[in-house]
């Protein structure tokens, strides 16, 4: 039992008992290794189902929309930024959510673990910055930092941007981390090379939309890909359509993406789909000095117009 889990349970119990909230949204232990399942608890007697570990990578902001209840939510840095975005975009009301902020040490990338493990992974234990992986071929221990999801490794907003209560000590941020090494690599490529890069990236996509659905930003009643009149994009397995879907999805997230990594984590085919959203996340930072979800007081740059908006692309 880790201290964070303990604290979360305490807070959840208190909130439910005091009737402050109708439900607590958090994670429970999963049925397979490296999986924690988003869940809700309405009964204070059941708060012990809640856990916190390195497998809580799914963005819980996604679970708060279109609900009537007063909710408490266990939220790490990126989750809180998406909650802020939801509040700005009228998806939830601030008074409707009680944010149990979790200073986050990063989430474990199950694909990295699988690649490093010897055979099928049977169990994974986290302890003191180490991760012990038991696999078919035996037990191995790794530094936790070596197993982090890519987005967590370059995270510089680990602490909640907005919270009502913290479930642990704030952690040290790493503001100087180079967040865009990968984007710059692509930027430096020639047009043909870029095209090929993304072609290869997308070759295994099955259009299951797990990336879209795991993303808290995607909440339109009807997604443009599902629209049939007009049919903005073909529904089949054509590579052009697949590319259109991914880039338009990214475009819809421009200035709103918090690089929470939910999309990439959800992809059943292991496609690094953050490569699409990250370019625009970088642009929002560089052109508008904007990072999504850091404040309730301003709308994302693409939602507003200012005469002094950068317009270098207009000639």
């Amino acid at each position, binding site marked *: 039992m880790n201290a964070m889990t303990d604290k979360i349970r305490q807070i959840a119990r208190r909130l439910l008992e005091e009737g402050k909230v109708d439900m607590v949204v958090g994670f429970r232990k999963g049925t397979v290794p490296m999986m924690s399942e988003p869940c809700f608890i309405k009964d204070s007697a059941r708060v012990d189902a809640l856990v916190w570990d390195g497998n809580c990578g799914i963005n819980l902001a996604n679970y708060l929309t279109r609900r009537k209840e007063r909710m408490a939510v266990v939220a790490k840095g990126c989750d809180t930024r998406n909650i802020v975005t939801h509040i700005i*975009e*009228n*998806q939830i009301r601030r008074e409707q959510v009680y944010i149990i902020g979790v200073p986050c040490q990063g989430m474990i990338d199950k694909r990295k673990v699988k690649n490093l493990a010897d055979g099928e992974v049977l169990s994974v234990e986290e302890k003191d910055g180490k991760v012990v992986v038991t696999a078919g071929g035996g037990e191995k221990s790794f530094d936790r930092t070596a197993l982090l999801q890519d987005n967590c490794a370059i995270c510089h907003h680990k602490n909640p941007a907005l919270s009502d209560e913290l479930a642990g000590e704030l952690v040290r941020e790493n503001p100087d981390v180079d967040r865009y090494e990968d984007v710059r690599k692509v930027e430096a490529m020639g047009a043909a090379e870029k095209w090929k890069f993304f072609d290869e990236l997308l070759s295994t996509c099955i259009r299951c939309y797990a990336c879209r659905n795991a993303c808290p930003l995607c*909440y*339109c*009643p*009807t997604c443009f890909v599902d629209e049939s009149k007009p049919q903005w994009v073909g529904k089949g397995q054509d590579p052009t359509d697949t590319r259109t879907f991914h880039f338009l999805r990214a475009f*819809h997230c421009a200035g709103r993406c918090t690089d929470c990594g939910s999309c990439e984590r959800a992809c059943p085919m292991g496609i690094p789909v953050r490569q699409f959203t990250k370019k625009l996340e970088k642009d929002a930072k560089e052109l508008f000095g904007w990072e999504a979800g850091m404040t309730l007081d301003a*709308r994302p740059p693409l*939602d507003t117009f200012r005469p002094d908006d950068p317009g270098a692309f207009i000639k």
Partner: protein
Amino acid sequence: MRKAAYVQYAQAVPLKYAIDSANCIYFQKGKCRACEKVCPTKAVDFTQKPETVELNVGSVVIAAGFKPFDPSRFDSYNYANYKNVITSMEFERMLSASGPSMGHVARPSDHKDPKKIAWFQCVGSRDLNKCDNPYCSAVCCMYAIKEAVIAKEHAGAGGLDCSIFFMDMRTHGKDFEVFYEGAKKQGVRFVRSRVHTITEDKATKDLSVRYVTEDGALAEETFDMIVLSIGLETPPETVELAKKLGLELTSGRFAQTGSFTPVSTSREGVFVCGAFAGPKDIPQSVVEASASAVSAGQALAEARGALTKTKEAVPETDLRGEPPRIGVFVCRCGINIAGVVDVPSVVEHAKTLPGVVFATDNMYSCSQDTQDTMAQIIRDNRLNRVVVAACTPKTHEPLFQETLINAGLNKYLFEMANIRNQDSWVHKENPEAATQKAKDLVRMGITKAALIEPLPEAELDVNQTAMVAGGGISGMSAALALAGQGYETHIVERSDRLGGQALNLHKTWRGEDIQAKLAEMVAAVTKNPKITVHLGTEIAGVDGFVGNFKSALSKGGQTTSLDHGVAVVATGAGELRPSGYAYGKSPRIVTSLELDKKFMANGALVTGLQSAVFIQCVGSREPERPYCSRVCCTHSIESALEIKRRNPDAGVYILYRDIRSYGERETLYRQAREAGVIFIRYSVDRKPVVEAAGDTVGVTVFDPILGRTVQIGADLLCLASAVVPNDNTALARFFKVPVNAQGFFVERHAKLGPSEFATDGVFLCGLAHYPKPIDESIAQGQAAASRAITLLARKKIRMNGQVAKTNPALCSSCGVCVSVCPYKAPSFTTQGPFTGKAEINPVLCKGCGLCVASCRSGAINLKGFDTNQIMAMLEAM
């Protein structure tokens, strides 16, 4: 010589032929009438006779215009004899795409492309020796530069050498100075010299001129062509008319008006506008047109509406449940379209398309008889969508929509395909492709038409109150004009006094006493029961839209709210506080306005002046202020004359770059010279040097005529300082109107909409628009009021039906539309099944499409430009 059947010019609206009886065989010889036989619409009627119609009117507006000066009487220019000497009007026609040479510049003698063209300015202007036109025609400098630039651009890489021979370059209009500087950069040569004689080489027909260069040397140069920049003059018939009406004329034979009554003639009830009230350019003519309309209307305000006929409204047909029945009308536009596009094949193509139940071609779709026929066809064939393939919706859509209304259809059931401006005109050389393109455009239009729906128009009461921001001369004249027509008007003035800049001015160039006239005007404003004056008040915010503005007025920390239907922006401008020329170092160095104050106070400084120097263009025509302040030349000359009047022996010097005494102000310039005022030109890179030493001011300037430096010891130095706009950013934001780089407001259209903004219900006048003298400020004030009244008189306005609309089922409530809309049209529904979803107030919506583009969920459509309609058009392409 034009043909007997002619149209005035190719883009005339309406584009109708007339018969010139002087050239018609039938009228001259009594036989022919061929046109009557061939006319398919039987439009030719030879039985028409001149009729005399008697009208009983309350006011008369004379807009008789001008005649271009005829230079054939000038022997020295040999216009009558040398083929390659042409007038600027002829050159203008050459440049016109629809002109005799289709926009190609060719030498009349041999039709070769000219390589070297010269313009001679002031032909028939500023000239009392060879003709009797003492005035400056005010427009020729600018049009000559424009012609040179266009000719140069047209010549392209082949190169064209353009030279303009001038005395003073008068680019005093808004944005003209920038154009002048641009022309210099493009290589147009400006030669300050008046040429006396042109000689033609008999063999080559080249033209040789001799002229004196600025440094006094004699030069000779040969040109392929010479364009005479001819001036404007009042034609004898108009002079005759003026006599008949008993109107006084000026020395230049223009209608006599007053600075405070700029569109009133000497006879009550007779008003004037345009070039008959003095030579002027388009914007000023348009301003006067509006001003004369409002002035003429003032006397008639009570009779308004008495003689209008109410049009009978045709009830709108209910189309619910009906499949599209599309009618297609393909216009031949005479030969404009049919000369290039195979119109019958376009009609045939249209007939094959789904939904089309009727297709035909028209000779001129816009003619009244065709309109009537179309309405009949619509009724007979029960058409419920109409596509017209013709010219541009910009000019003609309203006309055809009217036809739909007359036929009982909602006016939005209409779609236009532009097969003229965007097809036959631009693909003249490729008729086949043009026909194909016409078919494509028509097909796209039809495909869209099948999907268009009738749209309702929101109707809105107009609050019949006006707010005028600014209580200066122009603001007050706007208010008086508005109140004169019976509308409640509020003047909001920041200072604690009405009058604005006029309070600082002494006399007009016509010699009128400004303070006396101003006092009359202020009294008229304060006495007027319809006008409320808010002094010491600022506008703190503006909400609402045309017909229903709500402005927050802040006075001494207290804010009140004013509801008004229209707003006139007359916030004025100020005088630049000069830097340099030792300004501030001596009490003897003053600005123009400071000098006027001293005149008015009759202070010590202006009595017994022995010598005075004026420096022009202080802060104007500089890189940081690249505009001419328009008023300063005349102002300085008037002040110089005032000094001369007080002491005829005083030495008065005006140091200038170009004297811009445009129009009849030129006579004042002449008077000054006659009175002994000395004019010394300086160039911008060799400005006068001023030294404030003891009780006199030393001015050193290089005189290009003497070719040496002149030193003047002056008792007074007057700096003709620039007119600078006030900080207009807040007001610009409140009314969502633009401000240009120099800080002046940007009008709706530089030529045709000088007194209004692109934002509905907001109007503009006075110095806030551009520097201008009192007469022009008053005219513009009246013009702004005139434009405003066109709205106020309607009582109700209908809003455009082409507005955005949300589909609540698709809306994700993200609020982007609410945040991006500049007009505050979207909001969240507060009740009903779609609570929390966005909806759009059709009254506030301008149909700009910003929300449509920014909606991630695709929940917003712009009616009339629905996604499905656009996609259908793309599919049809």
